[in-house]
């Protein structure tokens, strides 16, 4: 399969942006060709300084959330995006996530995700082991969040620096509610008040977290209904 990668690049020191088109015959990927993802291709391109772009690569199996980027307009993990499935007319356009500061090429600074969780006070205050046992399934589901930021990328309400923290905070919030932590004030202020219920985050989570169910559950918690 002959592909053209159309990559939005950013120079590290100047911030200058430009597009680079790179042709790749996927046959060079050998045995991996059929199962190859955008991450496979980028790793191949890494081998030559002419085609190497800055990006972050972690586990290559959708568990660590590192390689989030925008692939043919859809935010995805590069290790989750099969070449055959995402190519359109032989082209794959790759851009960095748009809601975070770009460091270089496809590498973005997602530190703000941590800042959100810190200002939300996302930690346990006291032990409610009974609650943890009773709500085990919710705690488990919510604990799977990768903090990759894809849900913020598609959110019409989230913008960087705003008061609304989005689904990347709402999902861990479900864990804390499940564990018996009272963060109703923070939830109201940083999630509930800002969420437009567009549910654009519904099908974007690479971990397949049931975002709807957790949001609905959180909202019930906010209003004191179990």
């Amino acid at each position, binding site marked *: 399969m002959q592909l053209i990668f159309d990559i939005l690049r950013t120079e590290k020191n100047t911030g200058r942006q430009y597009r680079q088109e790179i042709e790749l015959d996927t046959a060079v990927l050998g*045995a991996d060709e059929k199962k190859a993802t955008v991450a496979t291709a980028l790793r191949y391109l890494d081998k030559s300084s002419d085609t190497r772009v800055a990006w972050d690569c972690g586990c290559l199996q959708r568990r660590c*959330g590192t390689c989030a980027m925008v692939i043919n307009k859809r935010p995805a993990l590069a290790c989750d995006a099969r070449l055959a499935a995402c190519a359109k007319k032989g082209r794959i356009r790759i851009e960095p996530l748009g809601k975070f500061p770009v460091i270089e090429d496809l590498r973005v600074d997602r530190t703000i995700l*941590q800042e959100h969780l810190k200002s939300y006070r996302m930690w346990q205050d006291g032990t409610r082991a009974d609650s943890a046992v009773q709500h085990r399934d919710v*705690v488990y589901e919510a604990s799977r969040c990768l*903090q990759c930021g894809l849900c913020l990328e598609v959110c019409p309400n989230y913008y960087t620096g705003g008061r609304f923290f989005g689904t990347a905070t709402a999902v861990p919030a479900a864990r804390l509610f499940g*564990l018996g932590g009272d963060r109703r004030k923070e939830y109201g202020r940083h999630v509930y008040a800002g969420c437009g219920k567009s549910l654009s985050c519904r099908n974007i989570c690479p971990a397949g977290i049931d975002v709807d169910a957790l949001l609905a559950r959180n909202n019930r918690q906010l209003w004191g209904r179990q």
Partner: protein
Amino acid sequence: MNSTGNDAPILIIGAGLAGLSAALTVARAKRRCRLISVAPPERAQSVLAEGGTNAVLDTMGDHDTVEEHIADTMRGGCFLADEKAVRRLCETAPLIIRDLEALGVPFNRNADGTIAQRYFGGQKKRRTAFAGAMTGKMLMSALIDAVRKYEADDLVERYDHHAFCGLLHTERTPDEEQAAQGTSGVYVQDLYTEEMLSFEGPVVLCSGGLNGMFPGHTTGTAYNTGEVTAIAFTQGIRLANLEMIQYHPTTVAIPGKRLLVTEAARGEGGRLFVEKKGAGGEILTAPEGRYYFMEERYPALGNLMPRDVVSREIDSILADDHYGGRVFLDMTGIPADVWDERLAELREEILHYLGPDPAKVPVPVAPGIHYFMGGIDADAEHRTSLAGVYAAGECCALYHGANRLGGNSTMGAMAGGRVAAESAMRYGYDIRDGRPGALAIDPLRQAANRLPEPDEELGDILREGLGIVRNEASLQRALRRVTELERTRGNSTPRILLAKAMLKSAMQRKESRGAHYRGDYPETLDACRRKTVIYATDL
């Protein structure tokens, strides 16, 4: 003289299970630490751990005891592990589980509400606590939250996107009193701004395994380059048991890496088989032609023999002409509720990356590099050979000897991180027992190499030399090729030195023990029952 009086923040390199456990320990003692890692903890390899974590809770009616956990761990490690350290590990494991429970880890439960435990390889009692098939992720999520609380108190200062460039070098003085005022520390570089920083304080290395020595051929993450260990090695730190590399018996090749099929799949009833050949040499693909070799050859533990045994059996049966050349993991007998409750993610992952449903069709598997038992040498208190430098987690050789039991890595990392942090607070920069300080390096030169490109050429050589079965000739050949590589490139990197050290360690052990199997020395010898240690000056 007071070597502990220095209250500089503890410098923790790495934010996986070991690093977070260390940070939590320091913060709970109301001391400050800097948590330095190339990526935030959500990206750490620890999130990949699936099957569980070992602790004697005896919730399954098996009459399990701490003594048995110690004995299994020592036996699994073929008596190379530090017994004092292993004893402490097994004694504290149940307390750590209680702590994790209080932090909200959603462990699977028995009907009576107690924590459920499953069978894992090399152990006859159900001792492995687990949270679905994502135990590592669940532990990490809880620990990240726990540490965050102290970030808000400024006791933990996080330096995500910062790479380790080297240990600080301080001149030793002949005056013991003055020397004790000296300090260890680290050079780090901000990967975003490229700014170089140096911090003084006791150092706890929690930088993970040496996956980067075998790029693309391990079950780990690309972040674990092995560079921290390699640089510290060039600065004089002593390494141990480098030849002990665990090949996990059940992995599958996917683009860029090997995907692990957790041991829990066998713990829950998965069975290994090979296809027999018929009279005419044709491969028998029907169920009657299946040879469940582990069950036939090892009736007691069957598919749950220790990993090195299973890997060697698979390796040899794959090469045996009498069989079909492929080994399968048959998980079709696992009940539907077990898939849903305990192995859901594994099933989803196999479906996603391989295709057929493992609940219906056996999955072809082969051994792959999974864990490094060897690494930075440490005493039972996690002190390395360098003053003021401590180590914990997979980068540290201490608990697992010649082979690691499934479920002991996560517990070893969490228990080790705690002890290393306590020692760092207690001893600080302690040279009284004669430990030297780190040798000088040029941190800028290391910075240029901060997140080094995968060295596939070096990895290919190492894989040939350090396969499941080794021998003198192949080790010598690999060493010659590494030296040749060094010469043609005209420079030596820390990883090239580390590669030589790994090969030399494997040559030095002229016996077979645990994960180290020598075709030319198949016997285990009492005389060799000691760890292999190596310094850069030995090369």
